[in-house]
């Protein structure tokens, strides 16, 4: 399996003039990119602005992207440079943020930062999405939960997960798909039903 084949197929479509394919790339990487930029700026809204700028720069530079490196690696570099430039131009010092900190500290720290800039509605909906996904993951059968967590949290390939779970690669693919579908069913109801629906669903 060639790594980054899916990103590359989307990139090639964008290079041929298909803007919808770039939309898919933004949807896939927006959270990762905002998280990355938040190492340099204080609040999520500013991080989103910088991430937006990085995506637009990437789009404009895509004709020069030849696929020598993975798309995300390339995008990552653009985002880092954009964030550094933004920090310099606004004369702000970067936030020292230890990524290896445990989740509880991180949660406390970032929640504290979010209170400065986020609207209450935005926070509530974000929290609702998060609690919905977490509840859906908890409700998954053990084999599905293990497969999706190994994939998303540990970043293992299907082959590595197959080795870890002692099952065929096809089974891993099926388990991850079924896990996503189960979570997505809950999540779709949140997005389609609006605020307050998660509590009813949970």
């Amino acid at each position: 399996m060639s790594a980054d084949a899916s990103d590359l197929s989307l990139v090639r479509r964008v290079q041929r003039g298909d803007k919808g394919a770039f939309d898919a790339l933004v949807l896939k990487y927006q959270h990762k990119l905002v998280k990355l930029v938040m190492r340099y700026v204080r609040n999520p809204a500013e991080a989103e602005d910088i991430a937006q700028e990085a995506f637009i720069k990437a789009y404009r530079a895509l004709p020069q992207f030849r696929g020598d490196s993975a798309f995300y690696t390339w995008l990552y570099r653009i985002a880092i440079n954009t964030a550094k430039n933004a920090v310099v131009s606004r004369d702000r010092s970067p936030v020292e943020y230890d990524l290896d900190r445990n989740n509880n500290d991180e949660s406390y720290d970032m929640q504290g930062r979010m209170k400065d800039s986020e609207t209450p509605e935005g926070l509530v909906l974000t929290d609702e999405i998060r609690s919905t996904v977490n509840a859906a993951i908890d409700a998954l059968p053990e084999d599905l939960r293990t497969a999706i967590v190994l994939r998303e949290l540990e970043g293992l390939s299907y082959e590595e997960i197959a080795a870890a779970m002692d099952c065929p690669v096809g089974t891993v693919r099926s388990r991850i798909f079924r896990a996503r579908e189960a979570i997505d069913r809950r999540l779709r109801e949140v997005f389609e039903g609006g605020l307050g629906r998660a509590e009813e669903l949970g």
Partner: protein
Amino acid sequence: MNEELDSQLSAMFDDELPPAECELLARRLSRDENLKARWGRYAIVGAVIRAERGVRLNAPLAGRVNAVLLAEPALAAHTAPRDLRRPRLHWWQPLAGAAVAAGVATLSIMWLRTQSLNADAPLVARTTPAASMSAVPAAAGPAASYVVPLPKPASVVVPSTELANYVVAHSMFSPPVARRNLLSAFMVSEPAAAGAEEPQSDAKAFAQ
């Protein structure tokens, strides 16, 4: 929604779909808004599992990027003319290039000849009468069986001292035959330049 399609989408999201299938699904993904929304929710699931807590999961970032890009021309509009320009120029560009090169070469040769003749004009002025003096008695004589041929105007062009010095100084870069010809021509021209004392021999040397 087709379950097989969703299964492919999930595998593509993880970069675990064969490239050939990726091509087909990427095409569909870029056009199908429902599929794209599902793709976006897969990204949210990943963000929650990774506890990306600083991130607004409902942020309209993709919509904002999309709105900005709507005002921009598609990338193919930038790249296509560049690709098309090359074959369009191919049919006439070599001909035009060759014509210009030939014209420049012709003008250069003509200019160099003119310059050479002008630079050696005093020398030619001294040698030509000598040569013509030698030819006149022969031509005027009755039934001359042998006439010393007049040197051609081009052949009376002899190298200047500066040119000879240049050739000697850079002798390592010039072929031996050219060097010998140039130097011998220069040496032969010396008596003529000094006063045209031996017009016959001078004329013979150039005739050879």
